């Protein structure tokens, strides 16, 4: 009883908790008296179990119930089980696996290219003044141009094949990675620079032991934005300029009024996005494990 009382109201009033242990707490009055002495907590309290899935689960339940009750027009919003059945049919009939593979390939190539370009440019601009003068202004200019607006030009230059799609995805990916990594590299705490000088670090040691690890949190912010960006640009590219892939499948389905196929496509995009973001977060947690100690 005693422990549960002090746990539910976790403020640090030692006098109050002393009362909790010494006073007979099995009486209702005793407990309320103790409670009243506490400040009202302003923190939102403990997180609910599985709080991240509660909202989506509720949404699915509502969707299923409304479909079963015949409240939704099946042509506009097909029932969840119809979508699943369609997914199964598309998978076995053969088009879905190749479409998925094509989309994944595009996203992966574009992302890899964008990641490499972003990191290399940010390192060059963040670690040398000449690099900064050459690169930073150019990237900032590039950033000001909406990348999707480059599509017509890129089609003229590179043709309507895979190359231009990968190039566009790479540009969408490299910008947030560059910006965040460059900001993190150039924003390294001046106190650490002094420390490195005092400890007699060489330039290479300084970069490897202080600048890079110090810039990693910023890099991960950019990386997560980059991953999201790769999916976002993929969806756009595949829906307007593709002859294969998930977006193409959805585009075709729109022509034939197959809303269930469109929902399958969206679902898969969603899963891709979720999985890749979780993967980045997992890596981030591993690499930046020193940050977690803050909360303990």
């Amino acid at each position: 009883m005693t422990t549960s009382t002090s746990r539910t109201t976790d403020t640090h009033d030692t006098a109050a908790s002393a009362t909790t242990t010494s006073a007979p707490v099995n009486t209702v009055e005793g407990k309320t008296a103790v409670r009243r002495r506490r400040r009202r907590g302003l923190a939102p309290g403990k997180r609910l179990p599985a709080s991240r899935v509660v909202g989506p689960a509720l949404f699915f339940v509502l969707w299923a119930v409304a479909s079963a009750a015949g409240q939704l027009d099946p042509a506009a919003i097909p029932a969840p089980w119809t979508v699943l059945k369609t997914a199964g049919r598309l998978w076995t009939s053969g088009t879905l696996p190749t479409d998925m593979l094509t989309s994944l390939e595009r996203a992966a190539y574009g992302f890899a290219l964008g990641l490499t370009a972003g990191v290399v440019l940010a390192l060059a601009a963040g670690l040398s003044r000449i690099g900064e003068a050459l690169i930073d202004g150019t990237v900032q200019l590039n950033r000001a141009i909406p990348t999707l607006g480059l599509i017509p030009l890129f089609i003229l230059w590179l043709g309507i094949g895979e190359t231009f799609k990968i190039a566009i995805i790479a540009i969408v990916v490299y910008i947030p990675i560059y910006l965040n990594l460059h900001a993190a590299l150039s924003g390294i705490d001046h106190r650490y620079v002094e420390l490195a000088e005092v400890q007699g670090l060489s330039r290479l040691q300084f970069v490897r032991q202080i600048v890079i690890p110090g810039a990693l949190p910023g890099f991960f912010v950019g990386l997560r934005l980059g991953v999201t960006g790769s999916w976002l640009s993929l969806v756009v590219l595949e829906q307007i300029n593709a002859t294969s892939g998930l977006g193409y499948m959805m585009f075709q389905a729109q022509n034939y009024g197959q809303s269930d196929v469109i929902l399958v496509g969206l679902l898969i995009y969603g899963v891709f996005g979720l999985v890749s973001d979780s993967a980045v977060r997992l890596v981030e947690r591993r690499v930046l494990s020193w940050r977690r100690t803050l909360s303990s």
Partner: protein
Amino acid sequence: MAPHTQQLTTAPAVAAVPAVQLRGLTRSFDGRTVLDHVDLDLPAGQFTALLGHSGSGKSTLLRAIAGLDHEVVGSGQLTAPDRVSVVFQDSRLLPWRRVLDNVLLGTEGREAAEKGREALAEVGLAGRERAWPNELSGGEAQRAALARSLVREPELLLADEPFGALDALTRIRMHVLLRELWERHRPSVLLVTHDVDEAIVLADRVLVLEEGRIGLDLVIDPEVPRAEYRERLLAALGVTSDSR
């Protein structure tokens, strides 16, 4: 305490080669002269405290000796030993390196790692080698910073208000620790502080910096009551008994 007294009677006049020698050291920021032709010898192995108001140029002097004033206009001569360590007011531990790796920053090899462990043990942090800096208290972090400066076996230890951010009790413990470490390793120490009592307790010699010059240079004799020094130093700092 024996070496302490001996140090007092011999220093500074008899000390052969000064560890730090300043001649006409001048530093200015934006046309404002912060250090104005400072002449100063710090004998090897002496524990010196440097007092002064904020803005009196204490930190500028320390940073000049540490070689950290790259973009500062100045003139004059300065000789300082090769192995110089600096302890800052903040512990300045890198949050992404474990305590031992922080202590070893700038060193290499297995031998250094062994020294790092010894240094951590010396400051009372044995067993905390694998801890993250975030997990240390303010006093522990500053101990780790002291260990980091010891590993380099400095001939000169510069400390810029190293205990300024600590609570009073922790500060007293750190005073004892610093004095012990100094007695064991005998580096020359220049401790910048604004705390008169800290200066008298720790140092053999107390300097007061005013308007860019050494205004007062006192050798502390432990036989003389501290209050006497305290009075003189406070007066030199412009704190009279009526204003207290």
